[in-house]
């Protein structure tokens, strides 16, 4: 399977504690939801190969703990990431308010400045919503991020979020490296196709 892989991408999931980072990842990698998922300690790591527009990409996804004390450790994992998923909980405004801190941290510790960022508002299945979708949209637009609302529980938007992120990374020249020279040809064929699709500008919403 690895032979078909176009590239390996490093993706990072960050956000306040308890917003459902690990649940999103579990939903994406194993398509399951565990209401009793233990709080992450330090960082966790999962791998999944996905296919976006015929390009297979191997994703090495680093899931981080949101607690303040763990944050002194996690920035080190920002290094070399091509994509980052910033998660907040639509039912807890404080997790949305803290997004600015996370972006600051990202800017400080990221080794590249063209990293693709995606904002995910999680837990839309819950009823006591505190953050409106438009607020999320506005924030994403302001910081040129991708934006989607999702629910790890009901599976809404999860797959889409990861796929869109990967597609965007692959479209960004210089952000990733092909696994081998031969695959380069495959990509260039592919890129022509993207022009018509036009799915993404600097900012895009998928809902």
């Amino acid at each position, binding site marked *: 399977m690895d032979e078909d892989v176009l590239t390996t991408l490093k993706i990072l999931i960050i956000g306040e504690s*308890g917003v459902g980072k690990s649940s999103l990842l579990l939903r994406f990698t194993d398509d399951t939801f565990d*209401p009793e998922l233990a709080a992450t*300690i330090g960082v966790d790591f999962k791998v999944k190969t996905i296919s976006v527009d015929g390009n297979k990409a191997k994703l090495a996804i680093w899931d981080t703990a949101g607690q*303040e*004390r763990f944050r002194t450790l996690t920035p080190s994992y920002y290094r070399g990431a091509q994509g980052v998923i910033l998660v907040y909980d639509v039912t807890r405004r404080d*997790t949305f308010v803290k997004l600015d801190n996370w972006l600051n941290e990202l800017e400080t510790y990221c*080794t590249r400045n063209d990293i693709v960022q995606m904002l995910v508002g999680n837990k839309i299945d819950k009823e006591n919503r505190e953050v409106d979708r438009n607020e999320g949209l506005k924030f994403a637009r302001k910081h040129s991020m991708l934006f989607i609302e999702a629910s790890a529980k009901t599976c809404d938007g999860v797959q889409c979020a990861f796929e869109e992120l990967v597609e965007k990374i692959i479209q960004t020249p210089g952000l990733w490296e092909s696994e081998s020279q031969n695959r380069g040809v495959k990509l260039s064929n592919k890129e022509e196709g993207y022009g018509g699709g036009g799915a993404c500008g600097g900012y895009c919403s998928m809902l």
Partner: protein
Amino acid sequence: MAADSEPESEVFEITDFTTASEWERFISKIEEVLNDWKLIGISSGKPLEKGIFTTGTWEEKSDEISFADFKFSVTHHYLVQEPSDKDGKEELGEDALPLPMQDLLCMNNDFPPRAHCLVRWYGLREFVVIAPAANNDAVVSESKCNLLLSSISIALGNTGCQVPLFVQIHHKWRRMYVGECQGPGVRTDFEMVHLRKVPSQYTHLSGLLDIFKTKIGCPLTPLPPVSMAIRLTFVLQDWQQYFWPQQPPDIDALVGGEVGGLEFGKLPFGACEDPISELHLATTWPHLAEGIIVDNDVYSDLDPLQAPQWSVRVRKADNPQCLLGDFLTEFFKLCRRKESTDEILGRSAFDEEGKEVADITHALSKLTEPAPVPIPKLSVTNMVHSAKKKIRKHRGVDESPLNNDVLNTILLFLFPDAADKLAEVFENRASTSAGNNPPPESEDYNLFSQFKSAPSDSLTYKLALCLCMINFYHGGVKGVAHLWQEFVLEMRYRWENNYLIPGLANGSPDLRCCLLHQKLQMLNCCIERKKARDEGKRGSMSDRSPGGASGDGAKGGDHSGDNPDKEKEFGKSWDSWSDSEEEFFECLSDTEDLKGNGQENGKKGAKESVNLKPEGRLHPHGKLMLLHPGEPLYVPITQEPAPMTEDLLEEQSEVLAKLGTSAEGAHLRARMQSACLLSDMESFKAANPGCCLEDFVRWYSPRDYIEEEVIDEKGNKVIRGELSARMKIPSNMWVEAWETAKPVPARRQKRLFDDTREAEKVLHYLAVQKPADLARHLLPCIIHAAVLKVKEEEAVEDISSVKKIIKQIISHSSKVLRFPSPEDKKLEEIIAQIMSVEAIIARARSLKAKFGVEKCENEEEKGDLQRFVNSLLEQPEVSVVGAGRGPAGSIIHKLFVNAQRVPAVPPLEEELRRSGSQEERRQGVQSEFPPPTGREVILRTSVPRPAPYSKALPQRMYSVLTREDFRLAGAFSADTTFF
């Protein structure tokens, strides 16, 4: 073609090309090319706008054809024009002159600053040139030249192409062209004369007019008026009183301890030679009618001061030697050296005393040996001598790459604290290391994070600058190796003697900086912890007040050795997994023997601890109270997480990733990373006797403690809280860790970070760096410094184009430097960009000085002058407002006047000179100017040729006269209808 010429009386007309000659084939190839380029048919276009030759874009297309086996290149040069509207085309009609012929008379683009010579000579917007393809080939013989000319004539006739076609004849450097342009019933011949020596009758206007008229051979009398455009060009090479002020810095001044123009820690800037080599002044009379002025061999009315148009261009010295650029280039060369420090300093230096440096690999065992640099006092001279002595032994005194004075100066610069007395250093240490780093939140200061270099006030940055200077002035790579060796020794000395390294930000390594900087910060972390521990042992500073910063966690001193009983009481029970954890969070082995003290201890501990005295409190956590005893909840003093450099992190994440994605892998991964959590829990328990997991969670992960307002039996609103569902999962890692955690304050816990081992690792790493490695580590700092320097210099000059380039350099560099091991080619590009900016600024300075912008008192004039100087840098040619009478004009005038006064010629003699030779007297009116370097004249008229009843057609002759070159380029049109 061949067939046409043979009259055949056959029934069937056969067109036969089999006998076509080389010449015929050549012609048809020319036609083919003209066809391919769609140059056939009526050329159309708008009349040329003023200055379009300069502002518009020129393009060219090339093809290759051959005459037999002789290769020619065909090139089409043209001004890119907007497609003209159709109406215009129709208006032209059949009888209109071909565009190129109209262009011959157009006066809007005389003397373009930058153009193909044919454009300058004939004012053409479009033409095709056939020239020998090889650079050294030439068509010299007259018959061949004529053959070529006939070829193009036939090709033009056959195709009806109206674009002028030229052939280049003679050697290429002579730029000799002949050509032809054809239109319906009209033809223009382009002819040329090129001579070394000028016949004296052609050096002035009247002589040229004579040739022009003879050449036209106009049958009419009187002759229609000839319009004239004249340009005299004067060159100024001799900037008499403006000596180029910048001298190469005096190296000796440095050595003597007296800092001259150049200090360590600063980069030099500026050109060593004048970056402006010449100033060309062109004085132009754009439109003179015949007879208005007199210019003959005895008298001339052409006074440059009176010329209606002045324009100036400057010739820039090619690659002027610039100091900053040289520094950068030399330093970059260092990156390619292969030698190790030992090889450079002489291997023998380490044979005897090798144990001191080379054996750092056995670093741990070395700790037990006496310190390798047993210097009683921290003083620069001692530091210098340590390495110096060794080198001296083997190489002789004079051979050591850096002499004492230089080395002293540098070390003092790098380690300013070493100059102070020992005691003072000791006390001021904390304040200096903090004070060294003022956090100006300016854009410039934060450049280091973009470049991945180091802050501009850091030791690493200073070291980079010193190495750069040493590489340039003090012994090259040998000097670099020597200083590095001294530096590494100093690092070891500081580690062994608990002296913090100055010029580094506190705290764990800053991953935004270069690896070398991180390593030094790491070493400082180690020193800090070791120092705290040693001080604790000495008992001089027993318990610190808990009011200190959280970073003081480990500084409280480690008493583990003093009270082993207590240690046993709270023995570790998580040792079952701590073995694997040790790969990352190295622990002291003295706790190993405490293994297996049973889990029951831990559980009991929680209950017993209620009676314990609280220890290691940092501060109360807001107004939070413990749930059960109802006492304030305290934030404990905690162990700082282990500092990490990026290479360590890389290793660690690799190991974590290798554990795989299985549940066990994930579990193990969490375990490996829970040392910090456990340590925090223990600290928390010690600070809050009688606390429970809920209390801990409220501090550590507040969102996992869910509070609800409930109304109790009495009807009062009560806030009831509980752990989140995920924290309540039985035997999840948090609960598990909580149960095993014992109330142990941070200072008595086992170390999460083994400073001894880490320090030795860093020191070894430093010792094995070759000069080339070092240069690569520090190149980002040097580029950073260079950009800052350029920025600083630019700020004085305020040149907008430079600002733009600097911005580009910054964004380019931040892209290149952030990646590990950037390509050499990209680095070279950056350096070249910086050098070009330096050259531009140096040129601006040179021009400013020459035009005396600073001396100008009138503010308005000063602004004008400044703009004038700036545009000189950016545009090929700048017109002078007010010509010779404007402020800039009068300065230029003075420049020429001054240059005329040859140095050391007293004023008296000058008077004599004025009444000099006849040649000078002829140009009496322009005595203040030197004789012009170039005289260009364009003569134009429209007369019927060859017969009086022919159509009036454009005639043009251009002449240029320089010191060793005379050229006439004529375009003479004739009506071909009846001829």
